[in-house]
């Protein structure tokens, strides 16, 4: 636990304290015989596996889990946590991820035993609070999306996408049609095409026009009777709202296909514009983005979907229904349903948090959130389009943006010899999480910036200043950024070697 390398005299340092601390896993700590767990007393007649289970069903030797005391576990993970950057500690303008403040109130209410220790198979009659919460959340999501029917079940955005495409399949099959193709723009997120394949369709990519929207001619050319669906993000991954959305909807519906809305960017338009009103049939939400479920370093998430009347019959089961007497129940048998996408009713703990968020903000607050997110994005964009930056990091498309924007690092690479990756790594030394990089793919050296509404102007100014400083520094000595970062717990890691000879578990 100590880091004993001799530091230098004077205040020149060879390493930071975290760098000096070697990475040691929990399996390398402790000692045989140590324990944190104290087993409750055996209060029934003793009977052992050997008496009840034939040898071939029994485990021969215990799994080599750690043998370690509680204080060691706590210290191990608390110290490990310090090797993470997090939203509570700094600016996190990760494009397409909506890293907005996670109110602690949500953790408090989600932890109430009435929510946290409620068994998923508790009889609906004794889970009325939970069902009412889900009912209310469904209603709010329906209102925000402008689509009447909501299913909360999907576990994340991509799970919602799968639900959506399977709903499309069911819709067409129910009408006796078999369609094979799903359209997605080349700017779409990777989960879109991946989902299409998983759902048994073929992906057809749509070109992007010079304004960053869908190329209508390309769409017209590809929209035919074999197209089941068009998956769209609007505003798209360039942070731009497609001005032709109404026409796009007409074309798609014209060939009898469905229109799917990837809701990852919903934070731009809450209370301002609704997918349902744009003509979308199916929408997924990312509660862990727009509705501030903490992301947990890679989940949990929740990806509810909202659909139009014609898609409703196929929604996954169970469905929450309200009885005449006002009580709530779960309805399992809906003969046209695509079935289940997972166990039980979905990530209820996430519902509690996002519902609390909606209760806190209300109609005005949600609108304020989107307006401020867009204001912050455009302000940061303006700051980054000032002299000293714009010439190296031009805006890829458009003039204004909605909640996020994409810069191109092309000129920076050519004129300063700095790749977007170098800029990102150098930002780490400035204490910022970098924006999303190299996405969307069609933008050269893309840098996708989403500040969110919960950041202050001071923070945006500091971030813009850091970018400018890095570019100035690079103009003098690009090597500095090319070798960055310097102050992080570890420096650049060899990802190639990691993939070539994968070591994915601690050798014991």
């Amino acid at each position, binding site marked *: 636990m100590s880091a004993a390398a001799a530091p230098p005299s004077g205040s020149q340092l060879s390493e930071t304290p975290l760098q000096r601390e070697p*990475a040691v*896993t*929990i399996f390398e700590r402790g000692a045989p015989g140590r324990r*944190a*767990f104290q087993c*409750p007393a055996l209060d029934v007649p003793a009977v052992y596996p050997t008496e009840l*289970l034939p040898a071939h069903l029994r*485990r021969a030797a*215990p*799994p080599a889990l750690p*043998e370690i005391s509680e204080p060691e576990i706590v210290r191990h993970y608390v110290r490990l*946590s310090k090797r993470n*950057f*997090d*939203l509570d500690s700094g600016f996190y303008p*990760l494009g397409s991820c909506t890293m907005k403040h996670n109110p602690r*109130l949500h953790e408090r*209410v989600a932890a*109430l*035993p*009435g*929510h946290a220790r409620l*068994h998923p*198979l*508790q009889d609906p009659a004794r889970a009325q*609070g*939970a069902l009412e919460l889900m009912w209310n959340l469904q209603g709010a999501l329906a209102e*925000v999306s402008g689509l009447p029917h909501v299913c909360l079940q999907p576990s*994340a955005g*991509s*799970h919602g996408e799968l639900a959506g495409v399977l709903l499309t399949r069911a819709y067409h099959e129910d009408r006796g049609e078999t369609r094979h193709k799903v359209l997605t723009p080349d700017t779409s997120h990777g*989960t879109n*095409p*991946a989902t299409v*394949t*998983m759902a048994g369709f073929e992906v057809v990519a749509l070109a992007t026009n010079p304004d960053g929207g869908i190329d209508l001619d390309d769409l017209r050319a590809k929209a035919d009777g074999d197209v089941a669906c068009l998956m769209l993000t609007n505003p798209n991954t360039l942070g731009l709202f497609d001005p032709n959305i109404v026409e796009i909807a007409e074309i798609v519906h014209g060939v009898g296909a469905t229109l799917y809305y990837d809701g990852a960017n919903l934070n731009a338009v809450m209370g*301002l*514009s609704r997918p349902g009103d744009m003509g979308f049939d199916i929408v997924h939400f990312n509660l*862990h983005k727009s509705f501030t479920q903490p992301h947990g370093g890679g*989940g949990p998430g929740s990806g509810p979907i909202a659909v139009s009347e014609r898609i409703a019959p196929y929604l996954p089961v169970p469905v929450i229904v309200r009885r005449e007497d006002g009580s709530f129940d779960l309805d399992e048998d809906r003969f046209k349903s695509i079935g*289940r*996408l*997972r166990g*039980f009713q979905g990530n209820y703990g996430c519902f509690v948090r996002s519902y609390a968020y909606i209760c*806190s903000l*209300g*109609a005005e*607050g949600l609108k*304020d*959130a989107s307006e401020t997110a*867009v204001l912050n994005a455009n302000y940061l964009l303006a700051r980054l389009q000032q002299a000293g930056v714009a010439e190296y990091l031009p805006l890829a498309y458009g003039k204004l943006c909605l909640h996020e924007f994409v810069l191109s690092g092309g000129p920076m690479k050519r004129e300063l010899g700095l790749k977007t990756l170098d800029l990102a790594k150098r930002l780490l030394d400035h204490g910022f999480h*970098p924006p999303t990089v190299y996405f969307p793919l069609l933008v050269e050296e893309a840098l996708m910036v989403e500040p969110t509404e*919960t950041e202050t102007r001071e923070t945006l100014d500091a971030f813009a200043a850091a970018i400018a400083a890095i570019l100035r520094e690079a103009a003098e000595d690009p090597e500095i950024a090319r070798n960055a*970062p310097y102050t992080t*717990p*570890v*420096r650049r*890691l060899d990802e190639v070697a990691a993939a070539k000879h994968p070591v*994915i*578990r601690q050798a014991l």
Partner: protein
Amino acid sequence: MSRYTATTPADLQAMLDAIGVGSVQEIFERQIPEPVRLGRSLELPPGMPEQDVYEHLRALAARNVSAEDELCFLGAGMYDHYVPALVDMLMERSEFLTPYTPYQPEISQGGLQVMFEYQTAICELTALPVSNASVYEGPSAVASAGYMARLHNGRSRFVVSAGLHPHSIATLRTYAHGFGVEVVEVPLREGVTDPDAWAGAIDEDVSAVFFAQPNFYGAVEDAAALSALATAACEKPPVVIAQVDPLTLGILAPPGDCGVDVAVGEGQSLGNRLDFGGPSFGFFAAREEFLRRMPGRIAGETRDVDGRRGFVLTLQTREQHIRRAKATSNICTSQALNALAGVVYLSWLGRRGIVELGELVLARTHYARQALTALDGVEALHPISQPVVREFALRLDADVGAVRERCAAHGVNPGADLFALTGRAEDRGGLLVAITERRTRADIDRLTDILGAAVASERQEQAVGA
């Protein structure tokens, strides 16, 4: 300005000036065509102060009967185990709770190392060489394993034991219908997968076979035998996929030692709370050959430019953001925080603890099964000789719904209504009772009294009624 935003009028003016617009509305009007702009405000209740939101959610919670409020023997996939306090504390650390997926490894070593440790723990539990960093949860993990098998051998049929969790079968069907694979179900015999029907159902068109250990009814399957039958059934054997309960792996032979190719399952019982069904996590372990077809994130060890040990997300060429349409899965956000709880819990339990806990639950399960099957009108649904380890199925000679209501009136939830879950005729009258380390002998005795009385009075009424 809400309590989560910070734009003062002065900020706003300065920002609008910098942008060069007169108002925020103008920014929207210049980008969103009028017809699709929402001309009204949303029909939602007004916002509330923090204390009102707390009171509202507390009132909703108060209308749920949780395992804190009643004596709960529900299981059937999620279990009321004790979650040690240190798990909550670590999950609540900002550094673990609030980051995104670790796309920048230099500032994400905490989360990445946790994934690496988690993968190690899952490999140890399952006795399989590779594990990913988590998938959503149990049933969808089963379906994802099916998709991987399909990618692996491209065949057209799945063979599924009826002993799989009904939610797993349903989810597999939903997914399989999408990617065009047929699902055939193999019945149980005496509570476990019928070996003849199982062997008979397998041919060279079968992409994968699925069974559960212990199975949905609580019975311990002969995993090795089922795997052997599957491999022996034909020239090109299917992928053998088992859904296993991780907390039984201290005492039950691990899938890796039973010829299983892919082991998946629900991780809730490892340090995750019930949460009315989620979030928890699904685990996904397999033989080496599947490594490059696994879904989800995988953390790998490497070195930094100065030679320091470090961790990264590796084998990303499997993933949607690189491979897009050709990805091995569409999963992106998964269950990292819940998997963290899982590995912290397993470290807390430790090498001996997982055995001790398994043995304690085994003994109490045995005790409960004997006590309950001794009641009038209560019998084991399957032969009592059938070993069970943490859960078991009963048949009541009375209406299960009515009996459960009677028990509830006494603050006891005797378990799950089997027929309501499976819809199988042979499960009518079935009750699935789960035991955890939180259910003491006194609790079990109480259940015995209450259930016995409930069944008795219910039969009486039926008798009278008849």
